[in-house]
């Protein structure tokens, strides 16, 4: 397979997964802030940390509030990770892959591009953000669903999977980093705490699944265990890393990167949950996941021939 094609497949998956993550992050948090009043006003700035765009945001906006942050995350073309930017980039990548992806996949992303990346000015004003976010999520589900049932299970499929899973683990770990910052005692009311953990679960599409798994209150330890270590939950970190391991088995020349993946997996599997949610541990995990991404790039996309 052409290196350029492999790289584009990897990135198209990352962009679409990123758009989906951003849409859920925005949707859940925007509506979560409506209840709870002043107590939750500080919700906005962490969203910028999660998406890693604090600094860039400050260059274009003065205040992080319920208008500027949603605009930044959804529509701002100055933000390379905004939904509009990522969908546009995904579509550009798909356009250069038109001969490789199925025409249904192409049509899905091309249609979404025309429908979701133009005339976005009135969406906030018309209270249509929720609908917009849903459509972004649907696009991602449709895209990967079509891939699941139309794409040849050749190398290309493995690169698409790798992109999707690495991006998914990366996004989840960034969210956990922010939410597990201030563990321990908290003076805020219990109801509010509950509200927050609920928002966290919903942000990663885990609320219903978590409820089925644990019949207790929303316990931070349980939530962390679920999101990091439950390999039956398709958005957990361990699910993603296991998926990376499985895809690598189908790829040539993967010995080195397989070793790194197995090592990361072993460290996650054999750790205590409490030890995984410390600041350092989350940071290390995030770095390790991203280094897997880097190794995919150097092993397959930019080799010297």
């Amino acid at each position: 397979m052409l290196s350029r094609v492999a790289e584009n497949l990897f990135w198209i998956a990352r962009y679409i997964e990123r758009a989906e993550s951003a849409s859920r992050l925005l949707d859940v948090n925007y509506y979560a802030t409506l209840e709870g009043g002043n107590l939750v006003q500080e919700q906005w700035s962490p969203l910028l940390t999660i998406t890693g765009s604090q600094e860039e945001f400050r260059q274009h906006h003065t205040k992080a509030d319920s208008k500027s942050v949603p605009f930044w995350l959804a529509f701002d073309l100055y933000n390379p990770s905004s939904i509009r930017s990522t969908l546009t980039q995904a579509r550009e990548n798909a356009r250069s892959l038109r001969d490789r992806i199925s025409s249904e996949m192409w049509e899905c992303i091309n249609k979404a591009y025309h429908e979701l990346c133009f005339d976005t000015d009135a969406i906030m004003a018309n209270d249509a953000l929720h609908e917009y976010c849903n459509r972004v999520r649907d696009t991602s589900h449709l895209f990967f669903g079509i891939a699941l049932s139309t794409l040849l299970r050749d190398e290309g499929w493995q690169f698409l999977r790798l992109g999707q899973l690495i991006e998914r683990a990366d996004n989840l770990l960034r969210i956990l980093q922010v939410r597990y910052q201030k563990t321990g005692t908290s003076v805020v009311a219990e109801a509010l705490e509950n509200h927050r953990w609920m928002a966290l679960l919903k942000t990663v599409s885990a609320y219903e699944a978590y409820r089925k798994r644990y019949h207790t209150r929303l316990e931070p330890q349980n939530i962390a265990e679920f999101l990091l270590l439950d390999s039956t939950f398709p958005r957990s970190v361990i699910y993603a890393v296991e998926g990376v391991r499985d895809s690598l088995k189908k790829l040539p020349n993967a010995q080195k990167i397989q070793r790194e993946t197995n090592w990361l997996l072993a460290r996650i599997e054999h750790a205590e949950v409490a030890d995984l949610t410390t600041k350092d541990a989350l940071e290390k995990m995030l770095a390790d996941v991203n280094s897997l991404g880097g190794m995919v790039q150097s092993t397959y996309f930019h080799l010297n021939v």
Partner: protein
Amino acid sequence: MFGDYNPNGFFDEMFDGTEPRAQGSAEPRAHYASILERMNSIPKPEFERRRAASDLTFRNQGITFTVYGDAQGTERTFPFDPVPRIIPAAEWAHLERGLTQRVLALNAFLRDIYTNQAILADHVIPKELVLSCSNFRREVFNHKLPLGVFTHIVGSDLVRNERGEYLVLEDNLRTPSGVSYVLANRTALTRTLPGLFEGMNVRPVQHYTTVLLEVLRSLAIGKENPTVVVLTPGMYNSAYFEHAFLAQQMGVELVEGRDLFVSDGRVWMRTTTGKAQVDVIYRRLDDDFLDPVAFRKDSALGVPGLLEVYKNGKVALANAVGAGVADDKAVYAYVPKMIEYYLGEKPILGNVPTLLGWDKADLETMLSKPAELVFKAVGEAGGYGMLVGPASTSEEIKAYMEQVKANPRNYIAQPVIPLSRHPTYYPDSGKMEPCHIDLRPYILCGEKVTIIPGGLTRVALKRGSLVVNSSQGGGSKDTWVLEEAGSQTQMQQSQQQTQQRRR
């Protein structure tokens, strides 16, 4: 929708006679009679609904081209008109013979020009005219080509004049585009107006990509299972959709220059497992950009060292390097002479009379009555660099004439041909209006010559305009070639026999 349709003095493809037509008085030509009746039976709102749905399909499928020089750099869909253009069997047989003759002569010319140059020695074509052509490539002199073919994919532009006579307007021998629209338009029309096809015996076109792949594979002489690729300048090229489409339909890799490299005297592509050898390149890149070592140094689109490998016969290119010398618009004027010289035959299809800036007397005529002529730059395509005298202001003409005077070799002029017209639906008026059209058939030359029935009918959508190019606001139609009545009955009979046997 056809209410007050008026051929108004032009040759109309659908209606007989050129007189203004009172309601229902002019007769449709026989081969259009039944589709006219069927179109008239569709209520207008329903027709409009279907047309709009097909527009949206083109957009969602991303069947677009890019317009250069547009600030937006936007992709546009190529407007598709749902009224098909119909060519009767006998008419097509004539075109097929004429086009086959023409490509055989053009290839004979190219072989000659890059070896003995007998036609120049015999003074049939002026030597200076050919050798001064910017697309004449000394680099490939005496290079032996597989099958001796220079132009594997040809798209010649045909027009019909006021008498309905077909003339060749130009030959595109380098990287003619548009064939993907032929296939897309057919698919679109079968979905939009399936009823029109019933019982019409329209000849299919979708085998184009199969034949194309066969031709490309046949260029790797002696190679059991050659690797064929399509080389594109990239997704910002105006015809990118087509490059991707053809690669997908043939099931071969679509590559960019940066995906290829030369080492050990071969061409390779960069893959996830290292390098893989390439045997045949269908390049959609002009010679100039193909190899920065041999041609334009600033080309970032090409493959350094490619020409050397090509000259050693270790990779095949379609079309061959240097083919452009024969579609130079000044050399074009001599194609009828080539046909007589190489084949000893009378040309079946005529040329449009052409004045050459290169010729002193012609240049004088060109400069004396520019408002009556169409001017073209010899090396350009796609409607770029042209001037339609009657449709231009005196300032535009004056500025253009300065360019002609500065470099006469670079320009030709032709009389304005009153191109034939065809009823075309206008959503803004909700009516059928006459539009000028042309026809670009696609000719494949390998071991034999194959012409896909029909081709691309382009429509000048700007009211009154004679320019059909997509970059200049043109649209297109599905083009039908009808099966010969006799052969059809035979086919039906044999089908009936098969069915009987099955019972």
